[in-house]
């Protein structure tokens, strides 16, 4: 008989080693449920953190995006300050003069790419030390946002009317005491289903009556279902200038011709610099933005938060990995004889390595899945508690959750699995549990 060297060409199908390992992993989970739960706790915490933050971020982003898109995606907003018009200006920007309402018409005339201009005069919520409130009969609302609006304002920001009509140019010029109400305000003042009952009725502001000519439809978007546009009490811009002479913060809404938004922004800048008499070296003393730019800024903030969350989650996952590694070391030691037996019936080192790696990954994925389930549950509770909150678990969070737990399983399981694979079968079979 000739002596020949054998070339083993055996191949253990993945499906079989996976199904065998799944079986064994489930067995060891069932045998030591407490141990398994403790082992995956770190992973669960990490995944819950990431996916919850992701859900909240996605919600805020969607709502805010909707809110700004409602103001018109073709519009350029011009204001003398950067940042939120209702917040106090920075020291640097405080000396800037508000924009003149008339600038809008000049821009619309001189800038080719600008189709129309509307103006909005912002009235602070506190006037002469008194919080503004609106009253109709015995109903009072102090969550009211008073603003002056040009006749075409509602058209340019795309605000829809549930009832009635916008102002006329005549009412604007004559400083007529007429008002358009946001949906929430109309409800608060004239009852649950105001309908057109509000039309023609009087709303009192600082003791003076305004006749309601229009009620706006409910706006979409907002921060957690709250859209301040729904609490608006709009009066003609001309009326606002007369009744609130100290309020001169004006936002110009400049609608660009379709597809010429970028061009419009440049042209508006040129015209405004001329109107403000800025020298070539002087910086702009006004701020231009579009809804996409605002959303873009928010997205950058959101991405920063997401990144910080992932860093935080990485710490939890690392702790989770230590837990997994610990359990795997115990499992390998406990099952030394089993490893010896497997080797005696033909398991190669790599088969043993693979088995324990799969077990470790399964354990981690189990943790990851638990984490996602807990996060989904918490997000579902949030949707009940917070109006307008949508149950969205972004795909990237799910992918990150499962991917990172898988990776944790491989990293944490590798050393114990290698220890198992390197066992001497004779020693392993002889092993007596301590």
């Amino acid at each position, binding site marked *: 008989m000739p002596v020949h060297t054998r070339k083993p060409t055996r191949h253990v199908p993945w499906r079989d080693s996976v199904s065998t390992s799944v079986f064994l992993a489930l067995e060891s989970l069932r045998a030591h449920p407490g141990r398994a739960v403790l082992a995956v706790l770190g992973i669960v915490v990490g995944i819950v953190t990431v996916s919850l933050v992701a859900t909240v971020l996605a919600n805020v982003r969607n709502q805010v995006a909707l809110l700004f898109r409602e103001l018109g995606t073709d519009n350029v907003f011009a204001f003398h300050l950067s940042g939120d018009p209702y917040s106090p200006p920075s020291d640097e920007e405080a000396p800037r003069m508000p924009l003149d309402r008339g600038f809008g018409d000049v821009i619309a005339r001189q800038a080719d790419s600008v189709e129309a201009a509307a103006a909005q005069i912002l009235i602070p919520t506190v006037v002469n030390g008194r919080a503004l409130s609106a009253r109709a009969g015995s109903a009072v609302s102090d969550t009211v946002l008073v603003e002056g609006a040009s006749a075409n304002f509602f058209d340019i920001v795309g605000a829809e009317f549930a009832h009635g009509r916008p102002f006329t140019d005549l009412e604007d010029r004559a400083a007529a005491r007429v008002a358009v109400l946001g949906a929430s305000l109309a409800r608060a003042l004239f009852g649950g289903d105001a309908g057109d009952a509000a039309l023609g009725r009087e709303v009192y502001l600082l003791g003076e009556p305004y006749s309601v000519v229009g009620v706006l439809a409910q706006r979409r978007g907002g921060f957690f279902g709250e859209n301040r546009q729904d609490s608006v009490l709009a009066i003609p811009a001309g009326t606002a200038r007369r009744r609130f002479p100290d309020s001169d913060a004006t936002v110009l809404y400049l609608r660009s011709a379709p597809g010429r938004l970028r061009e419009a922004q440049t042209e508006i800048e040129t015209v405004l610099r001329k109107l403000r008499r800025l020298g070539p070296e002087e910086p702009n003393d006004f701020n231009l933005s579009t809804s996409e730019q605002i959303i873009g800024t928010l997205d950058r903030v959101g991405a920063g938060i997401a990144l910080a969350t992932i860093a935080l989650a990485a710490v939890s996952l690392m702790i989770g990995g230590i837990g997994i590694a610990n359990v795997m070391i115990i499992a390998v030691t406990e099952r030394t004889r*089993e490893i010896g037996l497997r080797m005696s019936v033909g398991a190669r080192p790599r088969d043993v390595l693979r088995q324990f790696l799969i077990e470790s990954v399964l354990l981690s994925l189990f943790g990851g899945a638990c984490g996602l389930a807990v996060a989904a549950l918490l997000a579902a509770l949030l949707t009940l508690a917070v109006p307008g909150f949508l149950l969205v678990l972004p795909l990237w969070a799910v992918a990150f959750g499962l991917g990172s737990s898988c990776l944790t399983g491989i990293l944490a399981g590798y050393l114990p699995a290698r220890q198992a694979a390197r066992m001497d079968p004779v020693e392993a079979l002889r092993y007596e549990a301590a």
Partner: protein
Amino acid sequence: MTSRDTSPGAHLLELRGVHKVYQVGSEEVRALDGVDLDVSQNEYVAIMGASGSGKSTLMNLLGCLDTPSSGSYRLNGVAVEALDDEELAAIRNEEIGFVFQTFNLLARATALKNVELPLIYAGLGKQERRRKAERALERVGLGDRMSHRSNELSGGQRQRVAVARALVNEPSILLADEPTGNLDSTTSGEIMELFDELNRSGNTVILVTHEDDIAGHARRIVVLRDGKIISDEPSR
């Protein structure tokens, strides 16, 4: 009956000048000290000796769980001493069927799953594994216990499952290490009858035991002392 042909290559397994030396602390332990042994197809051999005689070491070498420090071991024409871990695993899978004193079953797996284990490592498909495992279990008389978990079986039944596992991949040699050591005398008798029957139907069986009546089932008895073969004769 026993063939003592000494020409090379004529036997199922051939050991020539096999030494196994362990380093225990600063001392060298010569567990096997120049063993020559030939076993042919369909032999029924008992290896005997006191504890420390080297019979377990010989068993591990024959089962390819270990390799000799020096000397040669040919199994079915393959030079085992030259194989690496992967190749040894393949040999164990294809050529050797182990039966242990402590059964070494996966406690929470069914009899069928336990018997399928070598076939998983042989890379067989699910259906073929099942078919072969069922046949092996029927052969050891456990056709009605296939889906019992091994911790639901008696000692004798467990050892039968272990024998079925050893048989399932049709190995060249059945290697049994004190197969009745954990069984009562009635059950021991039944297990030994099973080995006798397997040998009659063509299997090569090598037993390691220190009990004379167990060794009496074999047709050839090899006795070791201090790592050397001191006697090698047909039984009775």
